[in-house]
């Protein structure tokens, strides 16, 4: 056994083994790291609870007795914990949410370690690539106060302004103005906590540009973040009583595009587009139905801009998905060599693996298959049942048309009431197709 503690900037790591003997050590590591990174007492408890579930779960899984590295990361607005395994020991099947659960037994349902963990944190995800590693990640955010009851002076129309990267106070002012000028479906839930946005900008999670007169006036702004897959998500632009003739929205978008011009971003998607989004910069990719917590349905449009010249590519497609793809590619002018694929009785692995990404504030679950298997339809159906039990109404499934076996999942998805809603060009190895569950059984 080897226990080793290393410190590297804002990351702390612990190497141990998956054995309940080390449970107290591992939990002390989680708790003390989270405290050192500034997480509040109640958040530390919740994070610890989630980590207890995961550690115990892993000690009972195929990974038991194997080496594990635990990493704690100070994300400024959150503490992240990662359980990382050696790639050679990584058996993804064990990480199916439903791997150890019998849905017929209420007792088993209550012992769903991963589900319990997911309830206690803002994000639970599976790591499965050489760049980030292999394992499970958790993210627990700090608690921030909502908008203070201070009244800000209204933003005045600016005839002359500069686009600047704002300091922390200006970011908070910009966010408060956004809250008073826009309905809540036009900005991310994080905006309800201006201090959080300031911290997210400081951590590099969000990037913010505002239009300013050089003093502390934020007359408008735009926010974006890199998603890690070559895609940039944009929110806005948000303008506060600014006349159109000063072209502030165009200027904000231009500056954003210039700021990311030399990055390795492949595309930009505005997922919180305001009416101020200037015409002629983005293409409407499609819309999802977004269900609020009270069940109300809203149309959620996605505006897209390819960042590079499209070199053309190929896409695998099951015949059932062809009509959707043909229409979408033609409408968006994407050059694709479509290669049809279909199961032809060939040998398939017995067990599929589905990885979820919970996003609790948005009440969204995004699913991806990382392993093909004959039991995919059954596995899918079990996942849907779990999410329904959890009250998650926005269930998305993304398939990557760069992989033939994923393209072949389309019929099973459609049979289980998933509807193809839009293509995200170049969002994976190839283009991704986003399916949305209709909510029907």
């Amino acid at each position, binding site marked *: 056994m080897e226990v080793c503690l290393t410190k590297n900037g804002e990351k702390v790591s612990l190497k141990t083994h998956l054995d309940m003997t080390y449970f107290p050590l591992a939990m002390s590591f989680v708790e003390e790291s989270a405290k050192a990174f500034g997480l509040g007492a109640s958040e530390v408890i919740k994070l610890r609870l989630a980590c207890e579930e995961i550690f115990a779960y892993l000690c009972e899984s195929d990974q038991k007795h194997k080496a594990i590295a635990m990493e704690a990361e100070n994300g400024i607005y959150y503490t992240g914990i990662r359980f990382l395994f050696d790639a050679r020991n990584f058996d993804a099947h064990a990480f199916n949410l439903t791997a150890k659960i019998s849905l017929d037994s209420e007792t088993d349902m209550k012992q769903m370690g991963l589900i319990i963990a997911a309830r206690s944190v803002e994000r639970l995800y599976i790591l499965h690539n050489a*760049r980030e590693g292999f394992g499970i990640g958790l993210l627990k955010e700090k608690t921030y106060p909502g908008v203070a009851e201070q009244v800000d002076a209204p933003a005045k129309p600016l005839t002359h302004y500069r686009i600047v990267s704002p300091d922390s106070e200006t970011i908070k002012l910009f966010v408060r103005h956004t809250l008073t000028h826009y309905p809540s479906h036009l900005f991310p839930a994080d905006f309800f906590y201006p201090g959080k946005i300031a911290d997210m900008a400081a951590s590099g999670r969000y990037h913010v540009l505002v239009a300013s007169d050089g003093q502390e006036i934020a007359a408008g702004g735009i926010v974006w973040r890199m998603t890690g897959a070559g895609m940039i998500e944009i929110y806005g632009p948000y303008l506060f009583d600014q006349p159109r003739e000063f072209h502030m929205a165009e200027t904000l978008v231009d500056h954003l595009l210039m700021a990311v011009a030399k990055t390795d971003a492949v595309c930009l998607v505005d997922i919180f587009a305001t009416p101020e989004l200037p015409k002629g910069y983005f293409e409407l990719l499609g819309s999802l139905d977004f269900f609020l917590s009270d069940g109300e349905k809203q149309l959620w449009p996605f505006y897209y801009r390819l*960042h590079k010249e499209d070199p053309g590519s190929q896409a695998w497609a099951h015949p059932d998905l062809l009509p959707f793809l043909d229409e979408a590619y033609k409408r968006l002018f994407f050059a694709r060599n479509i290669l049809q694929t279909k199961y032809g009785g060939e040998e398939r692995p017995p067990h599929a693996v589905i990885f979820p990404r919970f996003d609790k504030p948005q009440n969204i679950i995004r699913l991806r298959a990382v392993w093909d298997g004959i039991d995919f339809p059954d596995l899918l159906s079990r996942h849907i049942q779990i999410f329904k039990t959890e009250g998650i109404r926005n269930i998305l499934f993304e398939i990557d048309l760069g992989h033939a076996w994923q393209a072949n999942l389309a019929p099973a998805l459609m049979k289980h009431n998933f509807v193809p809603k839009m293509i995200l060009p170049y969002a994976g190895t190839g283009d991704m197709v986003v399916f949305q569950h209709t909510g029907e059984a």
Partner: protein
Amino acid sequence: MLDVPLHNLVPAYIREFEPYIPSKPDTELMKLYGCDRLYRLNNNENPLGPPAAAQDIVRRFRPPRAAIYPSGDSYYLRMKLGEKYNLNPDQFLFGNGANEVIAFVIKAFCQEGDNIITADKTFAVYEWVAVFSGFEARLVPLKDFGFDDEGMLERIDGRTKILFVCNPNNPTGTYWNESKLRRFLDIIAGRQIVVVDEAYCEFVENPDFPDGMKLLNEYPNLVIFRTFSKMYGLAGLRIGYLAGHQEVVDIIRRTCVVYSVNTVAQDAALAAVEDDSHVRATRNLVRLEKSYLKTALEPLNLEVQSGEGCFMMIKLPMSDTLAYRKFMSQGVMIRSMTGFRCPNWIRVSIGKHEAMKAFVAALEHILLPG
């Protein structure tokens, strides 16, 4: 699965660097976009091709010569240019295209902590080479589409080693006249290396345009870049060069990769260099077709930036990358400009009349549907 710990092995400035992905070969693009011909108006290539004498060299190349190494330092070509510009042949250094000589200069003068200064909207390779070599690239916004001399001077500090000026500027076509360039060099007063990239100088006919070669004796910190890819139509053979004060060139030579310029390229360039009729014919074509294009664009009320060089910039009321896809679907290849930090602008190279007509027709089809 890759077991190499790339994260630990790769320097941060490489991890964060955006790789340049060249476009696919024409035949592949035509298949993908479903077009039966493709007008290449994206790379500022010479539509007339290389001069006749250079074409003859390519045609008559004897295959057995492919087994023999080329001249390692483009010997005869340096002799020829020395004669042409009245400079010592050792004042020239050749590379596999001008891109390679950019790397020679940066490697020769920059070390950890140093910086270079150039514009934000110009030929990207100065910035690229600096950044992926681990040096800071300070980018000064263009002023009225031109290099901002004052802005560049303000950004100089004790770690500034090189200032890059693209004259005329690709993609805006603006240029510094001789008095502006001299003033800039006088203020720098030899403290930094000033590179003036004259890739498109042969297209400029205005008398106030400075000939960098003539300034070399007065300004020993001046380095001039030229290429055979544009006016001389040898882009496919990759040959470019720099010229400077002999002591400066002697330093740069230490970082120079020898034998990187192939035999055909050297011989073709040697044949091309004296062909003034080719220069005249190309200038005539560019002048004529630019004029046609400007007239054709007038009814469309688009913002146009047209300066010197064999290209023009046009601002579109749509995403330039969407425009690229729409143009491609009609067999016309243009350059989208988001990567140049000019969102919604495209750059179109000046081609033969048939190509320009195809461009205008495609543009009208895109902007005026129905």
